[in-house]
């Protein structure tokens, strides 16, 4: 029998073989995966659940549309997805978020669902990063409108995405994280490769 261990496996298939990472003078992008992603939903009037989550994580759930919040203790980010819906993303490799929340949520009337493997994250940065996004996404990326650390769900090409602005050193130097569904990741990757070709 083979080894007694399941290995994590890269997923993108077709496009995996080409380049998993691209880096030019003016633009860089690469694929990554987060260790944990959870979807949280609470009823609008369910103050108990609210205060439970907020007190356990010692953080305010972002209520303002399209904003994010960091949970320092867990090296995680909370994204506003919709009214009373959030995405918890943890960036390191410990399964802490789930352990932390698992038992609690069962008691309360909220939905805490593991979707860690359903998203691929692509990081995009550099001088032309914004121009690449503008080729296929109808959002306004101006730095006064799409602020650092805010997020928005939209489309890039025909893939549904969640876009997170990481930084903005200056007007022309921006960096972004793009979350998309696993099954669309190969498409989005190919799309970005194609879009970037203008700038290399």
């Amino acid at each position, binding site marked *: 029998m083979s080894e007694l261990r*399941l290995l994590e496996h890269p997923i993108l298939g077709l496009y*995996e073989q080409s380049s998993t990472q691209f880096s030019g003078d003016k633009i860089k992008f690469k694929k990554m995966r987060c260790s944990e992603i959870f*979807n949280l939903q609470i009823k609008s009037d369910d103050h108990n659940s609210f205060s439970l989550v907020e007190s356990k994580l010692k953080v305010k759930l972002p209520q303002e549309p399209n904003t994010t919040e960091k949970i320092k203790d867990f090296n995680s980010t909370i994204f506003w997805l919709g009214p009373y819906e959030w995405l918890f993303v943890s960036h390191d490799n410990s399964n802490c978020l789930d352990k932390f929340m698992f038992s609690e949520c069962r008691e309360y009337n909220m939905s805490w669902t593991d979707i860690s*493997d359903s998203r691929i994250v692509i990081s995009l940065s550099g001088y032309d990063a914004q121009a690449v996004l503008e080729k296929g996404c109808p959002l306004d990326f101006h730095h006064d409108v799409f602020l650092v650390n805010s997020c928005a769900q939209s489309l890039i090409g025909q893939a549904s995405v969640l876009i997170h602005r990481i930084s903005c050193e200056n007007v022309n130097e921006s960096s972004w994280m793009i979350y998309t569904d*696993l*099954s669309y990741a190969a*498409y989005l990757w*190919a*799309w970005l490769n194609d879009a970037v070709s*203008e700038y290399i």
Partner: protein
Amino acid sequence: MKKQPFRVEGLGDIERNRPIMFTFNGKTYTGFKGDTLASALLANGVILVGRSFKYHRPRGIFGVGVDDPNALVQIGVHGRSTPNERATTTEIFEGLIAKSVNVWPSLRYDILAINNSFSSMFPAGFYYKTFMWPASFWPIYEYFIRKAAGLGTVPKFEDPDTYEKKYVHYDLLIVGGGIAGLVAAHVSAKAGNRVILADERANLGGSKFNSEVTINNKPVKKWVSDIESELESIGDCMVLKRTTAVIHSDHNFVVLREKIIKPNNHSSHTMISQRLWKVRAKSVIYATGALERPMVFQNNDLPGVMLGSAVTDLIHRYGVCPGKNVAIAGNNASIYTLAEDLKACGANIVALSDSRKKSDNNENLAFDSEFPVFMGQAPICAFGKKKIRSVSFGPVNIDTAISQNKDDKKIDCDLLCLSGGYDPNLNLIAQAGGSVSFDTEVSSFNCQSIPKDIFLIGAAAGNFDLQDTISKSLNIVKKIIKQNGTSVFPDIVYQTKGSKSLNAVSPVWYVQSKKSNNKQFVDLHNDVTVSDIDLSVREGYKSIEHFKRYTTSGMGPDQGKIANVNALGILSKKIDINPQSIGTTRFRPPYTPITFGALAGRDLGDLAEPIRITALNVWHQESKAVFENVGQWKRPWYYPKNEETMEAAVNRECKAVRKSVGIFDASTLGKIELVGPDAGELLNRIYINRFDDLKVGSCRYGIICGDDGMVIDDGVTSRLEDKRWLMTTTTGNASKVFHWIDEWLQCEWPELDVFLTSVSSHWSTITIAGSNARNVLLELAGDVDVSNSSFPHHTWKIIKIFGVVARVFRVSFTGELSYEINIPSRYAHSLWESIISIGERYDITPFGTESLHTLRAEKGYIVVGHETDGSVTPDDIGFGWMMRKRKDFIGHRSLSRESIIGEKRPQLVGLLPETYIPEGAQVLSDEISGSDKQSIGHVTSSYNSPSLGIPIALGLIQGGRSLIGSNIRIIGPSNSMSVNAKIVSHCFYDPNGDRLNV
């Protein structure tokens, strides 16, 4: 280098030290950097450039911008061969190859010019009146009509270039970079607004680019270039040249098309050829200027007849004066400036006619001594064959020139410049919903009402006084800036000097002539003449839209830019209704033609539609699976071994499942987690069958209908915990069903306490099916008891497979003992490989969708989309028993409507055909066949059953269940396809389900 006989020294913005060679109709010419094909041809004295659409009359360059209706050429070769390019908007580059379109065998000797001689047989709409006899000949007539039609030709090779798109957002979009547009851009950008300015030409400055005007004491050219560099230095300001606004859509969504000029247009490499800017602007200003209108008279289409503004532009922008002996005709003040310009470059002016009785400032007197000036007159007829040789003038009588024939003065010339007034360029504002009204002062349309957040300035607003234009523009910009939340208005003044304003024009719509039959062209593109208008009126096609469609006036590639107002004026005279009441035809996008490529962008080939793949895709590829498109998904269809045919592969795969064990990637199934106390109730309403009584640990198959009672999906739902459920959907409907339930929940039943989360991609699903499936599972299950008694059919268990939590469902779509293992996607590939190696001793066989479908058909299981088509009820497919009787669920009420219960519905049955018959074939009943070949149903699925060794099929047949045992005929899509078959029950294999419950 050959001399360019019509080039004027010292004028124009061309780079005379950078000569460029190009060919036109096979001959090589030289032009300069900065020339358009049109200016370069004229500089070389090439007057004849094309033939007209219908009569193949010789044509020359008429305008110098988007308004030129004549100089359409085919440009480039191979994949870059482009039909119907305008010589006037094509910048020349080294090696450019251009040819006239619609000529055969050559431009000079064009066979179809014979049409001109028979033109009296081809008035407007002649084709509606003839070619009807004999009826059977129409296809032959049509063949010849088609042969004569069309302009350029479609390239034979694929386009090597690419087209980009870009979404942008601005506070203010300004279309048109004339003085008006520049002032608006300058002020608003300085006020800190996000501003984008676009102009279709290669240079900013618009129509005042050329003149002797000064602004703030700078020559206008200098002022324009200073403003341009200033704008470029402002961060939130974008200036786009060679960029045309083509479409104005809802909510200030404006599409701009940018032409990208690359240094070497001949490269074999892929280049970006155009970019579509999709602008969303808070406000839009149109500063699109005005287009000069020609005049209508006899033979007004001869090469050498040109718009006055075109000649001005040629002189100042390109240093070309396209004639030596020039006649000028007009009805407004601009002709006197033109006369000065022409004089300055040494042309000999032979005559000038001004249709007004008196000029504004007696400018005519200044010239009177130099050449004949005819006041109150207009051109009557131009003479010449392939080029103008002379022109005659006659008096004007209320809007029409009168030909007296014998008295008409014939004056020799090689160029005739026309100015029939100016038409504000209103296409885009009309697209945006602005309404237009006729202004008799200038005999043209002005914009009357403008939708919110859209503005019109400059000549486009009917303002032909420069200083006044600027102050009005500033007022508008002030308003916009304020609206955008900026309170400081930059303190800038723009003082102009030397510009002449344009006052009233007196129109001359056409020439009245008793004798002559010479054509007077209204629309040069489509060869529409005044006599066509007469005919149209006579036959009652008087409404402007009927008129347009009957005569085709304004329907050519320029969409009547310079023809429409003349056509209207003439129509108005002929039917004696004022132009205002007649109105315009509807303005439509695009403002100028736009390539298919630019609109398609990069959504081509693999990017035309997302390719969706599962986490196991790499394995499938490496195993040489043949893929099938299922919606956007690529799914393994079958896995051929050593050059196997599809049939052989499917046979092998199916047999392996029936005999031992197979493995299948079912990850594309939709998976939805439902959490909350009311999830059971929600499922009761979604499915036709009951779910709230399902026990934790169990699974149940269910059917979903739309509220019209027709089946839309099916799947298995499991209860994971008391308040947590997992629902599965078909691959094709995964996101549809998710959003559909979400809609019911949010819009119809918000009181239900349920949360939905899609987990389709988080979990990959690996199905193992076959009698040895349990043996394989045993090795993964550790100490979990997976025996039939503790893990029976339609239950599920959590199994930690090598430490990873998996959800294993015992459900079956093949009729065999079968487990669907759900594992987080990152481990899917590894688990799959482990199972393959564990299964080696059972000869585990990967199988694709074709085998899955074959196996399920042997069992008589339905596939949504095969057995259902949106018009099938649960009872039709044999699930009537499943429906809850007294409780509401989606679709319930519809299922008791009159025709659903009262009629002979199609019912799912099995069919045993003599030989294989394709899916979709129609079923005829044996009894009623005879002469009346009525279909009683159709074949929904059809396979050669590997397990039974015979062809089997499923079908929907009217009253089918009561026909079991009878014989029928099945007819395919061709005469030869017809077989006998017997109706049987829809389950062909293991009807008692013994293999399932082992």
